[in-house]
């Protein structure tokens, strides 16, 4: 089983995000960078599938030099090799542009199964996984919490509002991860040592047969970042007893906030 994991390096979820001077990007200095948490589930699931069915796990990312750190982490978890697509013309693309680059890169890699995060926790646009599947003309299944591979097919349990769907597709296919799929393993010291010797190839757009003109069409771009409205907040409800506090809260929710 040839498995490819699509990986993005993102700021850690506990990071405090600040808007940069230009107003359309965020300050990247001092940020802690991690593997996108949903992609971490993807790496873990790929490793489990390889353990059960054999094969190789290749991690593919569009990024910058620093992204090699995230790919090395995935290699330390146990992935076999990494591919980083790093090209000035591939920076700052919208989701569709990134998907186009990934799809071009994947045309040079053998795969039976592609696993991607449902979304990256920076852009939160839920676009890249399904878009890559469309560009490669393969089926996709999103928000997966459980998968079973059998006879060249994949059966996935997908979470939907208020329940679960079970859907099946023939391989090659792509699925996106949902929390609950697995518990990603920690990297071990021997794993980290081994990862240093695993192949990690860097490619430009030309290497994957794309011209920069082919990806510069940006239909979606950030015009401005803003901070969400801050709450006046922090109004502490006083009272002589728990009963008094509870009654005062409900009065305020009813009369002032009008939500009860």
């Amino acid at each position, binding site marked *: 089983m040839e498995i490819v994991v699509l990986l993005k390096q993102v700021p850690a*979820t506990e990071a405090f995000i600040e*808007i940069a001077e230009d107003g359309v990007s965020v300050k990247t200095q001092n940020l802690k960078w991690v593997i996108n948490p949903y992609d971490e589930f993807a790496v873990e699931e790929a490793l489990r599938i390889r353990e059960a069915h054999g094969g190789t796990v290749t991690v593919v990312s569009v990024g910058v030099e620093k992204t090699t750190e995230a790919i090395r982490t995935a290699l330390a978890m146990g992935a076999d090799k990494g591919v980083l697509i790093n090209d000035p013309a591939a920076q700052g693309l*919208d989701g569709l542009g990134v998907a186009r680059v990934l799809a071009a890169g994947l045309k040079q890699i053998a795969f039976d199964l592609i696993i991607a995060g449902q979304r990256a926790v920076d852009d939160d646009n839920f676009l890249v996984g399904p878009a890559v599947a469309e560009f490669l003309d393969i089926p*996709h299944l999103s928000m997966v919490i459980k998968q079973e591979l059998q006879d060249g097919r994949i059966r996935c349990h997908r979470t939907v509002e208020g329940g679960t769907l079970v859907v099946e597709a023939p391989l090659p296919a792509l699925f996106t991860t949902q*929390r609950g799929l697995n518990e990603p393993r920690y990297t071990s010291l021997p794993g980290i040592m081994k990862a240093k010797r695993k192949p990690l190839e860097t490619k430009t757009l030309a290497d994957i047969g794309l011209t920069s003109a082919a990806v510069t069409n940006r239909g979606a771009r950030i015009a401005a970042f803003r901070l969400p409205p801050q709450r006046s907040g922090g109004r502490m409800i006083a009272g002589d007893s728990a009963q008094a506090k509870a009654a005062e809260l*409900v009065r305020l929710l009813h009369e002032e906030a009008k939500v009860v």
Partner: protein
Amino acid sequence: MSQAVLAVAEQNDGVFRKVTFEALSAGRRIADHLGGELAAVVLGHGVQAAAADLGRYGADRIRVADHPALAEYLNDAYCNVLATVIEAEKPAVVVFGATTQGRDLAARLSARLNAPLAVDCLAIQTEGDALQVTRPMYGGKLLADVRLEGPLKLVAIRPNAMPITPLEKAGTIAMVAAEPGRTRTVFVEKTLDSGKVELTEADAIVSGGRGMGGSDFSVLEALAGVLGGAVGASRSAVDEGWRPASDQVGQTGKVVSPALYVACGISGAIQHLAGMSSAKVIVAINKDAEAPIFAKADYGIAGDLFELVPLITAEIRKLKA
């Protein structure tokens, strides 16, 4: 250039999701700005009777794609049919609800039609032929104004974020070609937790965190019950195994926008705040008066949640009696 707008309705067994009406109302406003018409489309099987409802929220015309192969959502069949409808209707903008289905369908279509997509939109403005949407990024730590350009733009609106405006329109109904085309995904089965209010659509959410101290969330369930809402959880509570992952509110869980969010025994990690800060009113209940959650709450009570929550539940019950 065409200035029409298409709103994609989402139904489950013939019942429309609330966000469908929000999408229709948003679509109506965009169409009015563009000076075009609003079409609504519903895909499914045996959905024609329900389709008339869509005319009550500003749709000039309603397109029904009815086919046994569309009875359950499968992205390839739905994508094929919707692409055909878009080709016929030639909208400048397509509005989806940002549900699991809406996002999935919109993403695949975005690639197929080379149309930019913005998901979880909180506000939409037209600027000439371009569309400017406001959407959260970095798990809601920032709001981004995103400009979408091109002959066709796709937007998926966040449930509970935009108003529903009832508006009777002609709402002429027509059946359209519903040929599912080449499909590879196959529906096997679905399991729905009946009676459970979905977190992303709930008007009220009562969430528990580490302060719950265990898997007994019954006091929160009782409060959610009188509010007609849902129970959520922080990442700590999910990591402890007290609640299922599907209940998690936060940057790596669900992002919710209820009218009322009650955080119980939740300290207020930035990860959690990202998931609930767009709630209209936030109440925090925590033993630790210094907990960061209080700075983000509209109302706070320092105290024992196991004592306070049942009292609050009783007060609301009294009010509603």
